[in-house]
């Protein structure tokens, strides 16, 4: 185990390093440059001046070397577009994103698993088709459309929920939750179907196994048979999916964040990309990489917790 941790640690360091190289060269290969240079009405001289100011006139290799040198000392540099430290810009957004991510995960995992299991139990019957249908709708209806429709219904017409923004400080818990309801619903519509579908398929696989029969023979309640004995065996694909969803939610909730004016990482990433804020892109990429490494590591550990036969370390 100790050697596994150590091995994994070095692999991850190498991974972060490689990702940083690839990303650095990729963003420099991409057409365009920092937005300050990319104004329609800027002149060549202005572009050159800014380029020199931002240090972009040096060769890519040299710049990468400098970036790396600072990064290993924990300094991810300053954002090219705002001048603020990259760490600060990420730190401002991260908690908001985390809030949404965690809630969405809880909602979609809990509901997704329940729906998936129900679908599996009612295989090829009306409720299975219905759940499948809902899942597909959730998957193929675009988030922006649904988001606007929900705002229209709950905020404009019924005025039950705030149309956007993060909860102001010092309001009651329920008030705070009100701000989260719509974004979480919208985010869940894209994560939930995945979980529902995988859960269903995985449950069908498990439910005919002999140990399920044993559980029934013990006189265990059908619900316990399903939600305890069978489900545990069906969890591996779902856990894998959750592992993939975490980084995706942390960085990819762009539409929800723009529609609901949510100050999250997704928009930060898009803004950074659109404005070719190289340092910010690098910073975000490193953070995302670390999260990916971490979630995948946890998922790998969880595999063998779920199924003791799995020996991936």
């Amino acid at each position, binding site marked *: 185990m100790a050697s596994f941790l150590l091995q994994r640690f070095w692999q991850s360091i190498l991974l972060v390093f490689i*990702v940083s190289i690839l990303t650095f060269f990729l963003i420099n290969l991409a*057409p365009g440059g920092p937005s300050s240079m990319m104004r329609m009405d800027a002149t060549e001289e202005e572009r050159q001046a800014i380029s020199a100011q931002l240090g972009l006139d040096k060769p890519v290799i040299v710049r990468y070397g400098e970036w790396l040198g600072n990064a290993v000392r924990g300094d991810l540099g300053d954002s090219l577009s705002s001048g603020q430290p990259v760490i600060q810009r990420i730190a401002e957004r991260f908690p908001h994103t985390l809030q949404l991510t965690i809630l969405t995960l809880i909602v979609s995992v809990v509901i997704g698993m329940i729906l998936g299991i129900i679908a599996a139990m009612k295989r090829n019957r009306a409720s299975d*088709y219905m759940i*499948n249908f809902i899942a597909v709708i959730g998957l193929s209806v*675009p988030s922006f459309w649904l988001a606007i429709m929900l705002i229209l219904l709950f905020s404009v017409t019924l005025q039950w929920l705030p149309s956007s923004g993060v909860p102001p400080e010092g309001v009651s818990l329920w008030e705070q939750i009100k701000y989260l309801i719509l974004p979480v619903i919208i985010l869940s519509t894209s994560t939930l179907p995945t979980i529902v*579908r995988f859960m269903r398929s995985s449950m069908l696989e498990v439910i005919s196994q002999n140990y399920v029969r044993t559980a029934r023979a013990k006189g265990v309640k059908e619900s316990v048979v399903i939600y305890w004995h069978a489900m545990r065996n069906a969890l*591996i694909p779902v856990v894998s*999916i959750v592992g*993939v969803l975490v980084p995706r939610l942390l960085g990819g909730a762009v539409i929800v964040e723009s529609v609901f004016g949510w100050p999250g990482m997704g928009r930060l990433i898009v803004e950074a990309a659109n404005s070719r804020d190289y340092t910010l892109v690098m910073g975000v990429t490193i953070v995302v990489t670390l999260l990916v490494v971490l979630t995948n590591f946890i998922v790998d550990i969880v595999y063998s917790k779920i199924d003791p036969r*799995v020996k991936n370390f």
Partner: protein
Amino acid sequence: MQKTANEPSVMLTTVEKKPDRRAWTRLRKNKAAHASLWFLILIHVVVFIGPFVWTMSPEATNPANTLASWSVSHPFGTDDLGRDVFSRMLHGGRITLLVGAGAMVFTVLIGGIVGACAGFFGKWIEAILMRFTEAMMSIPNFFFALVALTVLGKTPWMVVLVIALCSWMEIARVVYGETLKWKQQEFVEASIALGAKPLWTLVKHVIPQIIPSIIVASTLGIAWAILTESAISYLGLGIQPPTATWGNMLQDAQAYIWTAPILGVLPGIAITVVVLAYNFLGDGLRDALDPRHIQK
């Protein structure tokens, strides 16, 4: 279960002589899957043959006749630029269905191979492949797509390839997890004991167990690919306008959400129905391949 004594108990001697285990025959017994299959065939025929019958150009604009409602000359009305929505649905369907299925095939291939090899072979292969997967999850997709498509050109096939390259990691993870689980089973050991090459064991014994998950992943992958195409076209990276796809029709409708929401409804329904059909077909296929399932 009810007592089914009145059911004509089949004579013990006649049945089960040569049970037909072929997936196709079993699939045909699953009504939803069977219907879905025919629907998909139908929609492909419509989309690929339709434009030869309905020859109105999907790209010809007519500012004088925008957002028209349905009529004989425009059965589905016209869009914000006065283009025939019916024709755009037909032509857009071609691209969308190709992109959806194409990207899905690549995604499943790459993700499946990477995940299965990593999980099955373990050791350094696992380390390399899984860390590679993590790297691909971490590298910003926007720049990846931007550079790739700028270099390779924004042809539909490149778009398909880039979508696949940006989305195979999920499947890889799922397949990896499942492989880890299945490779510990005794029947896998049995195959090794027979002297099978690792690849044989992997392909014959491990992957078939994962097929249900792969089917789910692919049916979800189709929806994902269709929507990703429309998302990247919003970044100027997708199929280039004025070529229609259901995805970009949906995306364009975004502006009209307040005034002409119907614009989004048609492509939205089309995508939903196709994805739904693929899902039902997938479920049917899964059942057909499940030896324990009886098609009634």
